[in-house]
C-alpha cells in the first residue's frame, strides 16, 4: 500500500466533498487510482475527459505511482 496525496478540482471536488485527501491505496497507476476513487465518490466523469498531474506535472494515466506522490485530477472548466 502506498500513501498518496490526492487533490480534486471543480466537479470532482464537489462530488468528493473535499478538495484534498490522503489515501492508502494498492493502485499501481494513476488510472487505477482514479477508478478506485471514482467508485468511492461516485464521480460519474469518464477518465478520458480528465487530466491527471503527478507531482505538479501532467502525466500519462499509465504512470506508476510511488509512495508520497501528489496526484491531481483535473476536469476541464469553461465558466467565465
Amino acid at each position, binding site marked *: 500500500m502506498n500513501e498518496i496525496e490526492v487533490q480534486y478540482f471543480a466537479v470532482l471536488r464537489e462530488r468528493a466533498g473535499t478538495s484534498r485527501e490522503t489515501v492508502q491505496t494498492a493502485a499501481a497507476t494513476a488510472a487505477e487510482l482514479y477508478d478506485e476513487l471514482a467508485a468511492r465518490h461516485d464521480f460519474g466523469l469518464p477518465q478520458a475527459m480528465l487530466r491527471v498531474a503527478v507531482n505538479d506535472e501532467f502525466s500519462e494515466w499509465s504512470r506508476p505511482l510511488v509512495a508520497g506522490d501528489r496526484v491531481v485530477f*483535473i476536469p476541464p472548466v469553461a465558466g467565465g
Partner: protein
Amino acid sequence: MGAFAFAGGPLEPERYRESLADPSAGGYASFEGWVRDHNEGRTVQRLEYEAFEPLGIAEGERIVAEAVARFGVTRAACVHRVGSLGIGELAVWVGVSAAHRGEAFAACRYIIDEVKHRVPIWKKEHYADGNSGWVNCERCAAAPRSGGPEDDHAHSHGPEHGHARTDDSARSTAPAPDYSRQIALPEVGAAGQARLAAASVLVVGAGGLGVPVLQYLAAAGIGRIGIVDGDVVEGSNLHRQPLYGTADLGRPKAAVAAERLRALNRDVRIETHAVRATPDNIDALVAGHDLIVECTDNFRAKFLVNDAALRAQKPAVFASVHQYEGQLQIYRPLPHWPCLRCLWPEAPRDGLVGNCAEAGVLGPVPATLGALQAMQALKRLLGLDAGESPSLVTVDLLSLETRRLAARRNPACDHENPGNAHHSDEQPLELEFETLAEAFESGLELVDIREAWERAHDPPGLQIPSHLPLSELVQGYAEFPAEGRYLIICAHGVRSLSLAEQLRSQGQAEVYSLRGGLAALRS
C-alpha cells in the same frame, strides 16, 4: 500673454515667471527644453521649429487649462520657440505655480508631455555633415493618435457580420493617460510603454473574465483593443461584471464596454464586434491583432479561438472558472508549446461541467482569473515571460492555493490542422427565427434544454412544452430522442449549439440550434 504662446525671438523665462506669481502660491516649478548638439548619433549644429500657430495656440491653451483643472494648480503657462535656434538656446519653457510642490511638478510634467504630443510643431535639424532633416516629435511615433472622425454610421451592424466599430470622438477633450507608475518599472520604461501603444489585442467575451481584462489592458495603454461579444447586459451579470450598471440592462455589452474604456483611456482605439465568435468569423476577427485573450464561458468558443490562434500563429491567453476555482493557460506559437487541444484532446462538451449560470460563481473568482489573463497578456507584449515554460495554472480561491502544472506538447495533436476543420459544410447547425411562433411554424419540434429553474422565470407566451434539461441529458438520466426533426433551445444559444453539434456528430442529421437562444427572440 495667453497661457500658451509661440515666440519668434529668444525666450524670457524671468518675465514669464513673474506672470505666475500669486499670494496663494507656495511654490513654482518650471521646465526648460534646450537645443542639444546631437540626436540619434548625429551632431546637430542648429535647428528650426515651425508651427501651425492658430491650431497650436488653441491646443496649447487647452493643455494648460487641463493641467490647471487636473492638478489644482494656481497658474500655468507655456511658451514655445519657432524659427532658427542655435545649440544651448531655449526651445520651450513651462512654468507652474501652486500651493504645494507635488502638484506643481506634476502639472509641469503633464504640460510638456502633452505639448510634445499634441501641439503641431515640426523640428528641422541641421547636422554637422551639412545635411538636414525634419524630425517627428518623439511621442507621435510611439503612440499613434488620430483626431479621427466620429464613428462611420454607414457600417452595417447586423449580427451576422464581423464588422468593427471604432469611435475616437472622445479623444481630444479627455485628459491624457498617466502611465508614470508602470513606466517607473525598470522592465517597462518608455520603450515598454511604446510597445504596449503599438500592440493590438483581441478580447473574446466581455463577461466576468473579459471585464477585468479589458479594463487593465485599456488602462495600461494597449494601442488597439477589439471586443467580441454578442450578448446584452443582464441583471444577473452585474455581480461579476461591475464595468456595467443597471442603466445598461439590455444594451450590447461590446458597446457599453467600449464607452467605459474610452472614458478610462482616450488614447486606446476600441473596436467592437457585437457578434458571437463562430467558425465563419473567427479568423477574420483574429487577423490584425497581436494577441488574443479568450474570456468566454464555453468550450466551443475556447476551442474556436485556440484553433484560430494556431492557424494565425498568434499567442492566446485562456482562462475559465468554476465556482471557486479557475484555470489559466497561455498558448504561444512555438514548436514545443502545447495548445488547448494538447491538454484536452477530447474537446469537452458544454453542459457537462457546468457554467456560471448552472454552477454559480462569486464575482472575485472570474475577476482574479481575468486579472491574471491581463497580466499574462502584458508580460507577453513586454517580453517579460522569457523564463516561463508551458503550464496550466490552477487557482483555488477558497483555499488560496495556486498550482502550476507543467504541460507538454501532445505529439498526436496536429498544430498544422487544428481541430481538423471540424465544422462541416452540410446543413447549417443554427437556425434563426424572429418569434417563437415562427419557430413553431417551422415544422421542427421545439425542445427546451434549459434547467427547470430557468424556465420558472419565463413570461407566458415563451413556454415550450417539450423540456429536456441538459443536466439530465449529460448525466444520462434522460436521452435525446433519436428520431425526428428538432430545434433545440436554451437561453442564449450556446448550450443548444453544443448539443446540436454533438447530436450531429452522432449521426442525427435533423437537429438544429436556435441561434442566440430565447434572448434573441426577446430582443
